[in-house]
C-alpha cells in the first residue's frame, strides 16, 4: 500500500469489449477513481495468470481483469479460457495468503460505460479494505 493510502490498481482489458466500454465511459464523461491503470490486450485469453502475480509483485495493490461477457468473445472463446485460468489463480492467491479482494474479474461490454464505473469503484474499494500482505517481495524494476 502506498504512502498516501490510495490503492494502485493494474487492469487488463480486452480490446473489443471492456476497453471499448471504458472508452465509452469517457465519451459519456462518467467519473470514476483515477487509481485504475489500464493495460490493453487483444483478448482476456492472452492474459497469462503470471501477469497478475507479476503485477502484485511489482507493487500493485489490486488487479482487475475485464473482458467480453461469456459468449460474446470477439475471438469466440478467449474469455472462457481466461475465466478458467484466472478463476483458478484467484483460489491459488487466496491459498497463499493474498486477500481475494485484491483480484477481480468482470465482464464489461462495449456498451456498458456505467458498469465499468461500478466495476472500478468496487475494485478500488475492495483493494482499499483488503488485508495487507507481505507474501510477495516487491521486486526492483530494472528497465
Amino acid at each position, binding site marked *: 500500500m502506498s504512502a498516501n493510502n490510495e490503492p494502485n490498481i493494474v487492469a487488463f482489458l480486452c480490446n473489443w469489449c471492456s476497453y471499448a466500454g471504458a472508452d465509452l465511459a469517457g*465519451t459519456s464523461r462518467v467519473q470514476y477513481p483515477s487509481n485504475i491503470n489500464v493495460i490493453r490486450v487483444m483478448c482476456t485469453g*492472452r492474459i497469462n495468470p503470471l501477469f497478475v502475480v507479476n503485477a502484485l509483485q511489482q507493487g500493485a495493490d489490486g488487479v482487475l481483469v475485464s473482458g467480453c461477457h461469456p459468449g460474446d468473445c*470477439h475471438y469466440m472463446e478467449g474469455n472462457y479460457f481466461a475465466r478458467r485460468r484466472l478463476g483458478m489463480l484467484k483460489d491459488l492467491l487466496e491459498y497463499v495468503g493474498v486477500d481475494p479482494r485484491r483480484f477481480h474479474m468482470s465482464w464489461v461490454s462495449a456498451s456498458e460505460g456505467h458498469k465499468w464505473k461500478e466495476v472500478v469503484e468496487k475494485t478500488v474499494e475492495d483493494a482499499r479494505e483488503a488485508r495487507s500482505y507481505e507474501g510477495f517481495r516487491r521486486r526492483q524494476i530494472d528497465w
Partner: protein
Amino acid sequence: MTDKPKIGVYICHCGINIASTVDVETVEEYALKLPNVEVARTYSYMCSDPGQALIKEDIKEQGLNRIVVASCSPRMHETTFRKAIQETGLNPYFLEMANIREQCSWVHEETEEATAKAKKLITASVAKVRLLEALESKEVDAEPAALVIGAGIAGIQAALDIADAGFKTYLVEKTPSVGGRMAQLDKTFPTLDCSACILTPKMVDCASHPNIELLSYSEVEEINGFIGNFDIKVRKKARYVDFDKCTGCGDCAKECRVADRFPSEFDQGMGNRSAIYLPFPQAVPAKYTIDPENCLYLKRGKCGKDPKCQEVCGAGAIDFDQQDEFVEFKVGAIIVATGFDPFNPSRKPEYGYDDYPNVITGMEMERLVSASGPTGGKVLINNGEEEIEPKEVAFIKCVGSRDESVGNEYCSRVCCMYTAKQAHLIREKLPDANIRIYYMDVRAFGKGYEEFYDRVRRENVRYIRGNPSEIFKRGNKLIVKAENTLTSTPVEDEVDLVVLGVGLEPRAEMREIMDLLRLSQSGDRFFLEAHPKLRPVDTATEGVYLAGCCQGPKDIPDTVAQAKGAASSAMIPLARGKVTIDAQVAEVNEATCRGCGFCVEICPYTAIEMVTVNRFGHEIEVARVNEALCKGCGSCSAACLSDSVQPKSFRDRQILPQIAALGVIK
C-alpha cells in the same frame, strides 16, 4: 532492431478536452526524463495535419525510431498515426498510444489526479514502445462475392447494389419469401406510396438478377474465416415442394384438408392460411411451402387416403421425402440485415391486448387496411360480440418504446409517423369516425414528416397529450382512461377500436447471428456498430456490415440509405480483390517450442499446426502459426508452458515492462 531506442513523446491537448484537466506542460517535462526519450512535445491537435507533421519532422531530423502519442483512445486514431509514421519510412508498428482522453481527462475531474495518471500511462507506453518490433502486414486475395442475411428491404437493396456492381451475391432469407416487414405494410408515410407497389419490383429483381443467388427458406448454419475469405454453410430447409416443378398455381392450398385453418404469419394472425401455403400473393419466389408443424401427413403420417395436395398438383411437385439441403460457398464480405420484431403488447397488460379482440397493434392495423389483407381493406373489427365498423378509434403511441418498465428506453422512430398515416387511412375509409391519438411527444423529424403530421391534424384527427393508464371494457365499448396533460384533466373515452402504436425491438433470435459473426449489442440490444457516428454500418468484425433495423429502429428511407452504405462498404474488399491481414499475429519460437501441442488445441481458428523440423539432427515436432488464419488474440500464448508462442506487439516481454511501470509508480 539493434538500434538504441530514440523515443518521441507527443502529448495532445485535444483542444481543451485533455488540456483543461491534464497539465500537459508538466507531463511533457516528466516525459523528457523517461529513459530513451529524446523529444517530448505538446500540441493542440496532434491528429491534425500540422500535428502529424510535427512527428514526421522529428523522426527525420532527430532520428527518432519509436513514437508514443498520448491523446485519445487507440481505437480512435491508431491507424492515423501509424500512417503518418509510415510516410517517413519508419515501421508503422513502432507506435504506442497512451489513452489520456477517454480513460483519463474525461473521467477524472481533478487536475492533480488526471495529471498523475497521464504520467503513469505515458510511462507504461514508453516502457512498451522500446520493445516493439517492426512488423509487415501481408495481403491475401478476397473472394469477389458477398453474403446478405435477411431479405427485407434492407437486404434486398444491399444485394441489388452489390449485384449491380458485378459481384456474385448470396441473399439468404429465413422465411419462404423475400419482402420482410415492408411487404406487410399498406401505405408508406409521408408520401402514401403503396408499399407493395414500390417493393414488389425490387423483390422480383433480386430473384431474377443474374448475379444474385436467392436462398429463400434457408438459414445460415456456419460462418468461418475472415474478411475476404469467409466460408459459409447454409441450410436450405425442406419445403416438401419441388422448387423447380411448382408453378405457384395454388390448387394445393385450396384443396388442403386443413385449408385456411392456421393463422397467417403475413397477416399477423388476422387471416388464415392452409398447411401448404404461399405467404402472400406477391411472394417471391412464388413457390408453395408445406408447414411441417401443421401438415397432417407430415405430422401424423396420414392425410385421408392420400394427401390432397399431392392428388391435385398437376406438376407433381409435392415431395414429402424432401430433406434439408446444405450449400457451401465462399464470400469476401457479409451484410447483416435481419430486421426487427414488433413489440409484443402482452407485456403492457394494462392495454388489454390479450383480453379484447378490438385492441390491435399497428402491424395488425396495416393488414386490416390493406386491400390484400384479411378483410380486403375494409376496416371491420370484432368488438367481442359482433363485427362492426368502428365509429370511435383511439391510437396509443410509444407502446413499448421510451418505456423503462419494459426495458426499452429508446424511441422507435417510426410509430409517430405510422400512427399518423393510419389515422389518415382510417379517415379516408371512415369519414365520420372520431379519431383520437394519445401521445407523449410527436417526433416528425424526416423529410416531409412535419408537413404530413400537419395534414393529418387538419383532417380532424385529435391529438391528446397523455399516455393512457388503462383500457377496460364497459358494455360493448372499450374505455380509454388517460390524463390530458395539457389541460390537466382526466379523460375516459368510449371507443370501438384501439390501435397500439407498438415500437420496434431487436429480433428474438438475434443471438444466433451474434454467435455466428461475433457481433455485440449496444445498450438498446440492437447490433452494435463500429462507431456510432463515423462507422455506422461497420462492426467490430472486419468484413461484416449492418443494414436496416437490426442496428436500431429506422424508417424506410433511412433503412435504404444504410443498406446502400453497407453495400458500398462491403464492395471495398470485393473491388480491391485483396485484403490486408493484420500483422499483429502470433509467432512460435521453434527453438524453444517443446511440441506439446497445447496451443494447437486451444486456438479457436485452427491457425496453429504441428510441423516436423530438424533440430541438431533430430526430427522433432514444433508448432507453427498460419498467419492468414491467426487473429492475434493470444490465447495460445497464455497456454504455452515454455512461452514459445507469442503474439507480436503483445509479447510477454512487451507487456511485463508495462506492468512494472504501472505497479511501481504511485
